């Protein structure tokens, strides 16, 4: 890679990381829950950008579609349906700050240990897997995790139906 191209890539990377981490900090510090979710969306878009930089187009698109288009939207929906949620008097945090820090620190330590211990081998040519390759691998090598995920979704689906039904009988 020549100088200007790698410099550009570096600038893009720094910008994306700044957006991702900056908005992640905002998510936990903003007092207004609605604003916090908007910051979360910005953070998720930053992560999608990082996926793009890794040439993982498919993952980036799915990430935006699922997390921004569905999950974050659901969060916003719940916030808008909740009364007085944007009240300034409402506490947006609980008292489990210390256990949370301890848990996250442990997770970080574990990740760092794994990353530093891993034998990284630089590759000459990056060939991002296409959609067909991903589909093929999911139905052959990674069939079991794929099926477990579908089982999880089925459980969520049945749970949602049960909850909706119970509401129906009460009224």
């Amino acid at each position, binding site marked *: 890679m020549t100088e200007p*191209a790698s410099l550009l890539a570096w600038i893009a990377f720094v910008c994306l990381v700044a957006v991702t981490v900056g908005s992640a900090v905002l998510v936990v510090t903003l007092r207004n829950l609605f604003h916090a979710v*908007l910051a979360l969306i910005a953070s998720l878009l930053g992560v999608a950008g990082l996926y793009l930089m890794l040439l993982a187009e498919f993952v980036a698109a*799915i990430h*935006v579609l699922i997390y*921004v*288009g569905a999950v974050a*939207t*659901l969060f916003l929906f719940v916030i808008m349906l909740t009364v007085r949620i944007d009240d300034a008097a409402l506490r947006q945090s609980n008292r489990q700050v210390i256990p949370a820090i301890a848990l996250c620190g442990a997770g970080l330590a574990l990740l760092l240990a794994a990353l530093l211990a891993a034998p990284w081998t630089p590759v000459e040519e990056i060939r991002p897997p*296409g959609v067909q390759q991903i589909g093929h691998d999911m139905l052959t090598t990674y069939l079991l995790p794929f099926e477990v995920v579908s089982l999880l979704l089925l459980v969520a689906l049945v749970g949602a139906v049960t909850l909706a039904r119970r509401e129906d009988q009460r009224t």
Partner: protein
Amino acid sequence: MPSPETALSGEPESLLAVFGWYILASVLVIGFVTVSAMFLIWWERKVSAHMQSRLGPMRVGWHGWLQSIADALKLLQKENIIPARADRPVFWMAPVVVFIPAFLAYVCIPFGPRLIAEDLTIGLLYILAITSVAIVGIFMAGWASNNKYSSLGAMRTVAQMVSYEVPLLLSLLGVVILTQSLSMQTIVESQAGIWFIALQPLGFLIYITAATAEVNRTPFDIPEAESELVAGYHTEYSGMKFAFFFVAEYTNLFTIAAIATALFLGGWHGPLLPPVVWFLLKSYFIVFLLMWFRWTFPRVRIDQMIGLGWKVLIPLSFLNLILTSLVVLLLQGGSAGGVS
């Protein structure tokens, strides 16, 4: 046409060329989006008028063709009004968050054999993913306005868009199975012989229905039902901020029609006329169809609409998906086991 890959591996000149190309493409798309939206607004008014035995705009230019330009100039001069108790930053950002995805979707719309900003391998998925971000902007507009009509409109819009995104995606998967590709150009090229509307009639019907709901048009215009909600999520918006929502709405309308053209109507394929003309003709025909719907069907109730999405369209699109996969598998005689 240079691509980012050649730029990353190549010398500074190609890098410049890539930037030049990106800027050119953006300018072209912005120009097209604006002109197309203004044309569609005028056209919508003319179509509506003629369907009601009226004339529509007639004063500004021949048959009022300058009306949209006059309206745009008027909107530019409007005072910038923000409700007193609105959430200012969010109120400002909402129109932009709605407009940018609508604009970005044009990266992957195949206007002609070489006329596409960037033919991504995941083109179709990219368009669907990027347009789903606009939902957030609608929520922001509804919430920041601090107005019950805006909030209700935003919630209805999102409930509707989230419900209909599922059948929309599933209806397009039939075409993806047939072409085994998500690239818009590959999908169009594989329709040289036969248009996919002939092979996927059910998919097309589901797509058109779901797409009408996605762009919140009658009979699914509950989010902005003027008799109940004033104007839905953009009730409090005026001037240029309103114009952004308006342009985004008509841009999305064209995007929906362009996807239908590329996936079901053979894209830019057609005899005699240049490919671009064919693509635009087909797309504007789909837009006309959606305008026709508006004056043909009455608005449905919200529970009927959500019920139609989840209980009719989703099962139907699953049926379409299973049938398509079955036929493809049988025709290929099991030889398609591996990655082709």
